[in-house]
């Protein structure tokens, strides 16, 4: 398998010396979904930002397609990586159509080609193009906004997607629906995805492999199948959340 993203002993420290991630090493293989699981403040988002060079490692390196991010032109790098974030990612002053078509437009596509691509993508994420293209983000529900966010990240057909708790702000029913659709999209599109969540259920549902972060360190990395029975105590903490829910319900 071909490794698309690789962290090698990557550190990220703030100017005041506080470490957000420490000695991070892992690889992401082409076509897999690696879920970064962890509690708030465990360094998940920082790790994503190291991959698209919104942050640069203060030690070690992060490689994308074999090249350190610090060698990449950051603009070129980011245009090869779709980025989906929770809630605020859409540009509030632009229509859905312009939001989704933004990266292709920046890449200099013909307006006609951008338009047909936008329609194709809106249909792909389950939004009727005629109905939604001209709306603005504030006229959409949370679930619809998130769909637009996914469509936008896919717009220029990047090989890599980074998703930062994309379904975190959605109600449970919509979230379950989005997760199902994500799985079917994933099978059709075969992207390399790094997906951040604090929800162990979501991780088990969507991951090829799960990387567990705690206090900025990678404490476990297992395939989805092995994760439930992994020996690390930190994993057990997360898995016990699932079990305790079951037990409570069985009472």
């Amino acid at each position: 398998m071909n490794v698309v993203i690789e962290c090698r002993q990557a550190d990220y420290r703030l100017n005041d010396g506080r470490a957000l991630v420490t000695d991070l090493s892992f690889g992401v293989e082409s076509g897999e979904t690696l879920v970064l699981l962890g509690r708030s403040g465990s360094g998940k988002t920082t790790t994503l930002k190291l991959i698209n060079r919104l942050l640069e490692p203060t030690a070690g390196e992060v490689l994308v397609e074999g090249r350190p991010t610090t060698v990449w032109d950051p603009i070129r790098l980011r245009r090869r990586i779709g980025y989906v974030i929770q809630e605020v990612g859409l540009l509030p002053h632009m229509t859905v159509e312009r939001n989704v078509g933004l990266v292709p437009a920046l890449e200099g596509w013909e307006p006609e080609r951008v338009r047909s691509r936008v329609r194709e993508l809106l249909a792909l994420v389950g939004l009727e193009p005629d109905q939604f293209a001209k709306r603005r983000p504030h006229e959409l529900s949370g679930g619809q906004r998130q769909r637009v966010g996914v469509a936008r990240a896919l717009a220029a057909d990047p090989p890599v997607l980074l998703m930062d708790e994309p379904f975190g702000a959605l109600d449970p029913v919509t979230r379950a629906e989005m997760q199902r659709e994500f799985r079917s999209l994933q099978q059709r599109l075969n992207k390399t995805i790094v997906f951040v969540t604090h929800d162990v259920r979501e991780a088990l549902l969507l991951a090829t492999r799960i990387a567990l972060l705690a206090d900025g360190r990678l404490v476990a990395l297992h395939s989805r199948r092995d994760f439930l029975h992994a020996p690390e105590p930190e994993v057990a903490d997360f898995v016990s959340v699932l079990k305790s829910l079951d037990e409570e319900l069985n009472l």
Partner: protein
Amino acid sequence: MRGGPVNFLEFLLHNRGEALALTLEHIVLVAVAMLIAVVLGVPLGIVITRQARLRRWVLGAANVFQTVPSLALFGFLIPVPLLGGIGSRTAVVALVLYALLPVIRNTYAGIAGVDPAVIEAARGMGMTDRQLLRYVELPLALGVIMTGIRVATVISVGIATIAAAIGAGGLGTYIFRGLAMVNNQVILAGAVPAALLALVADFSLGWAEHRLKTSR
């Protein structure tokens, strides 16, 4: 003034040719000054969102001009070569100096006030600094920038009345003439149209601003 105008409306009607010319002069003074203030102030406001070091100096300098009493500023400018002297050029320079602060400050505040999460998302999509400015920061800051322009315009309409003191014309001409003649009606003939002008500017720019804020 015995046998003079009974009230300022009669005076204006009687001298409508001159009054109209002075009003036009007044509008041109303000318009030219505002054009220059926007052309200088908006880019300066943008630059200081990028250069934290410059910010204190630029805002500080703009602040200083704002605190100088307007009559004194006109006076100070008269002996200055190139910019100064008697006439409308000096008046425009003074008006620009007053208008700069609201324009710069609001441009800065508007851009600095854009949600950092939106900026990060845009960066994450691979926007260059220039694209970020053009497609995200400026459109989102436009309403606040327009507020600055509106405030500066209203201030300028008032201050432009003093321009008459250095021979730049405008509605201040009547005010100073009235002062010299100790005739309140002549003073009003300059002051009332100037006040109306300020209101009209405030209202129409306020309307434009509202349109900009709701259309995005």
